């Protein structure tokens, strides 16, 4: 087994890291304070091909492997999880088209995301107030009439809602068929009847916009069905499956940011006549943090590598998501602890990273659902 990164991967990591340090880190505190999305950062990231990592080269994408994706997302999240959340969810949102879409759909929609001069954003419309972990129980309906569909319903907690140029929305063509009735649609943002409801105020991930999506007699042409009717749930699950290592990578990134800050602080902060790093309780805590971050990263990279090599990786994928994000929460919590009172003050970055880390244990399949999926494969 070769655990080393290739030269290209080392260069990629360096490029993205520099981008995160120069373009994301300086803006992150204000974006968090004001709960603002930054188009400026997204446009700059798009120029580097970072906003559409999942798009194949044929359609203008960067043609990167999933393993490369974990490198990108770790470095971006080291910059800011909120900013990266918007970028990653955009990449996940377009996956249904990549997985099941027709060539016409791919040509029409993927190129919008990869347009470096005018990048557009996609949002994933699955979750509803009554359908969170139980995604199969969505109630948004799609009624077929005369070569088109009429969509009615409500989505919630949609990342990039209101910012996106297009949406991949999941609705049921037949409630009585349950999971088997679910169909995916590509819906343009300016379609009549599609509107944004409440914009959520969140504890963290505040540089990313999260909102309700209201569908009121939204007319969608038949050619906008992703794949075939009733194929939607399987497509959505495939999209979520291969994005788990990336959500894990977000966890690795924010954990690493917190760890670095805590290590540096512990070596400088003098109490009882010596740096607190000299207290075993602190140094052992940091040792555990370093180890867990490495473990988390390795799991994410392994899952991505397996998927790149066409291997069935559902178990490894679930493991990587929940281990890495549980790790992130633990590491970010300990980073606050190491900073003591200063760790609680907004002028230090660790309290933001602590708030950001929490959502990673919940989004894209809670860590309980990840275990459910894994248990189902044991």
């Amino acid at each position, binding site marked *: 087994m070769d655990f080393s990164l290739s030269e290209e991967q080392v260069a990629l990591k360096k490029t993205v890291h520099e981008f995160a340090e120069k373009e994301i880190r300086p803006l992150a505190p204000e974006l968090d304070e004001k709960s603002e999305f930054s188009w400026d950062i997204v446009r700059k990231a798009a120029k580097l091909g970072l906003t559409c990592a999942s798009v194949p080269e044929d359609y203008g994408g960067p043609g990167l492997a999933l393993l490369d994706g974990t490198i990108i997302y770790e470095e971006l999240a080291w910059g800011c999880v909120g900013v990266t959340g918007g970028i990653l969810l955009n990449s996940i949102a377009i996956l249904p088209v990549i997985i099941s879409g027709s060539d016409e759909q791919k040509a029409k929609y993927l190129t919008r995301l990869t347009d470096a001069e005018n990048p557009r954003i996609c949002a994933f419309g699955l979750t509803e107030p009554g359908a969170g*972990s139980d995604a199969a129980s969505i109630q948004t309906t799609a009624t077929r009439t005369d070569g088109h569909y009429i969509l009615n319903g409500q989505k919630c907690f949609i990342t990039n809602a209101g910012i996106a140029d297009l949406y991949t929305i999941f609705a049921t063509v037949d409630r009585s068929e349950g999971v088997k009735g679910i169909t995916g649609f590509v819906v343009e943002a300016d379609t009549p009847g599609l509107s944004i409801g409440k914009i959520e105020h969140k*504890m963290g991930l505040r540089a990313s916009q999260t909102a309700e999506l209201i569908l009121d007699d939204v007319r969608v042409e038949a050619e906008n069905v992703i794949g075939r009717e009733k194929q939607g749930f399987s497509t959505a699950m495939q999209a979520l499956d291969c994005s788990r290592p990336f959500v894990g990578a977000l966890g690795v990134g924010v954990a690493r940011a917190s760890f670095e800050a805590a290590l540096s602080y512990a070596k400088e902060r003098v109490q009882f006549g010596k740096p607190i790093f000299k207290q075993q309780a602190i140094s052992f805590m940091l040792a555990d943090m370093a180890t867990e971050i490495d473990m988390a990263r390795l799991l994410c990279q392994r899952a991505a590598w397996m998927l790149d090599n066409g291997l069935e990786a559902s178990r490894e994928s679930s493991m990587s998501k929940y281990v890495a994000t549980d790790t992130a929460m633990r590491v970010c919590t300990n980073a606050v602890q190491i900073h003591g*009172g200063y760790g*609680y*003050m907004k002028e230090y970055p660790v309290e933001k990273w602590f708030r950001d880390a929490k959502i990673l244990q919940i989004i894209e399949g809670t860590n309980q659902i990840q275990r459910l999926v894994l248990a189902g494969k044991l």
Partner: protein
Amino acid sequence: MKVFFNEEHDMLRENLRKFVQNEVEPHAEEWDEREGFPRQLFKKLGDLGYLGLSYPEEYGGGGGDYFTVVILAEELGRCSTQGIAAAMLMQVGCATPPVLAFGTEEQKQKYLVPAIKGEKIACLGITEPNAGSDVANVSTYAEKVPGGWKVNGNKIFITNGVEADFMTLLARTDKTGGPKGISLFLVDTDSPGFSVSRKLHKAGLRSSDTAEIFFEDMFVPDENLLGEEGKGFRNIMWELQGERLVAAASYVAQSEYVLETAINYAKERVQFGKPIIQNQAITHRVADLAARIESVKCLVYCTAWKFDQKQYPVKEISMAKLLAAQLAFDVTDEAIQIMGGHGYMMEYPMQRAFRDARLSRIVGGTDEIQREVIITTLGLRA
């Protein structure tokens, strides 16, 4: 718990619970958002006798036992903002006990009596930028001058610091260093040279004001020395015992309150055709937390009993504080997880409880310091 509480205690608890439900909880979100609460709340509590429950009647107190303060801490803990508990327990359990314990009659009349009434707001000035866990490292210096002391230095992370009328201040009176060169003073915040330089913005506990304070050639008269000169460090270590114990009581109560809320949510939230409470993954974790709550509650009550008996149970107090703080953090974290996406949204109170609970493992002596204290009491110091 009939062992510790009688009918009077139960009535006090019932009244406090109603007070918090009616006068505090409805404003929790707003006060958290605006990083403060109306200072008249101190007077409201003072009028009802809640700021002097265990203080002697001769100073306007209720003359009750220590469990009356435990009940106050618990009921204030049953709230989705912990900032009010922080502010009131600072008043009752931190800044004023040294006045009763070490003060002269004049000092008690001037500071303790109005504090019990809620007419004067009190704060405690220990922590400095270079003296957090290492309290003995305080460098705020009180230089002896005719008629009093000239104080220079600064304090940080001072609860009630912005609103306070007086401060129980820990300062160095002997520059040669060490814990024996430290003394306590009572300082009026309108003294020339006393300034609130910053109101600090925090991740949580936002309804409680926290300040950075500077002293520039601030004059403190002789009669404001609190207790014996040079005994400040010993006396503040004594103060910390009561502070840690009431904090522990409030964390356990907060844990119970938050777990109840999470359970109620889990009973109603239906996914996969049934309430999520029917998932063992959730109920087993709830069971573990409920067991921890019971056991830490017992530890808090037993320790409070010893404290009430005028014992000095340093080991048990640090154990209670350590375990209760960790419990509050674990319960609020689990509660967010149970509530899923809704737990993360500002419109639900759980994220506030989670943010508030995070400080519990740091304030009043970090987890790590509590462990150091326990080690000392177990005779394990090398």
